């Protein structure tokens, strides 16, 4: 049975860095939300907040399509994104896989700071504009660990984490 590693948590928690390290360590493809969003956004020529929101929806569709294809062919995969609990229903429709979730969080005030700092990223992101909203929503519990079953590892990046040691630990859990 393939393994589905889900890296979840709020924006700016450090998910992408951790997901990349885990994918490399395990030799699995990484299906990351932001990478898909950037490729689609650039090719579509998406401009403005409204189109960016629609792009978010399209990205989600494409991401789950890719996960379905990979898992359906028996390939293990790392899925990364700021999934909300509502997406647990989408995960439930995926082909059968063993699930290992890595839930990455940090203090809301720190997330806000990081969002403001990375505001020069790709134009499809609106980091500075949404920094306060992200901190608020994290406080409100909008990005908890997802009810997916399987193993769960909680990672708090409020203090610096050794990403390689973390990837090694996740590889042990995956074995």
């Amino acid at each position: 049975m393939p393994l589905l590693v889900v890296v979840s948590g709020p924006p700016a928690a450090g998910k992408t860095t951790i997901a990349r390290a885990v994918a490399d360590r395990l030799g699995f493809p990484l299906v990351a939300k932001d990478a898909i969003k950037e490729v689609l956004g650039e090719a579509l020529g998406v401009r403005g907040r409204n189109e960016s929101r629609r792009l978010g929806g399209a990205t989600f569709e494409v991401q789950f399509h890719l996960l379905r294809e990979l898992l359906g062919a028996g390939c293990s995969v790392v899925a990364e994104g700021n999934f909300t609990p509502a997406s647990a229903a989408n995960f439930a429709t995926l082909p059968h896989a063993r699930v290992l979730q890595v839930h990455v969080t940090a203090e809301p005030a720190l997330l806000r700071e990081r969002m403001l700092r990375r505001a020069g990223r790709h134009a499809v992101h609106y980091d500075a504009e949404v920094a306060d909203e992200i901190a608020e929503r994290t406080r409100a519990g909008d990005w908890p660990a997802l009810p997916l079953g399987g193993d769960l590892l909680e990672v708090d990046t409020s203090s610096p984490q050794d990403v390689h040691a973390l990837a090694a630990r996740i590889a042990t859990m995956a074995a």
Partner: protein
Amino acid sequence: MSDPPLLVVVTGPPASGKSRVARALARELEIPFLSKDEFKERLYEVFGSDGDVEERVERASLAILFSVAGSELDAGVSVMVESNFDAESDVEPFRDLERERDLRLVQIHCGGPTDRIVEHFAERSAGGKRHPGHDDDPEDAEEVRRKLDAGLWDPLGLPGELISIDVVSGDVDHAQLARRVRASAR
């Protein structure tokens, strides 16, 4: 050291039976399947297909197809990609994929008699079974013929084995085709 991953490219004109054969073959080979049209359908759902959206969706679907194929191949995962790839403009992205990593490339070209393909295209456009976003029009059939004659959907100039099939004139044995792909990829 395991074999380098396989990149199976399924190409050919519209309405040549590509996607049906590709889907069945991917299942037979147990590898993930990336179809340009399946990406397009997901994008049409969100962005609609008015005005210049169709062209943008086409571009984005190809971009995501090549990007995802690259990252799956990077992880050592074999993958099948399927589209009516343009024999001119879509060759370079494949060359990039091939240049940047160790892989085994097999191309399957779906062809057949021009009249049958044009006829099949007209039937499919009139049938209304495809996603409305594709905006197929039976009146485009003559354009399909012109592009076919101009070689737009000829086999791509890529390294590796080329397997030419005709699924317009008759069915192919998917298990046998899978064996041919595996044998060609050695």
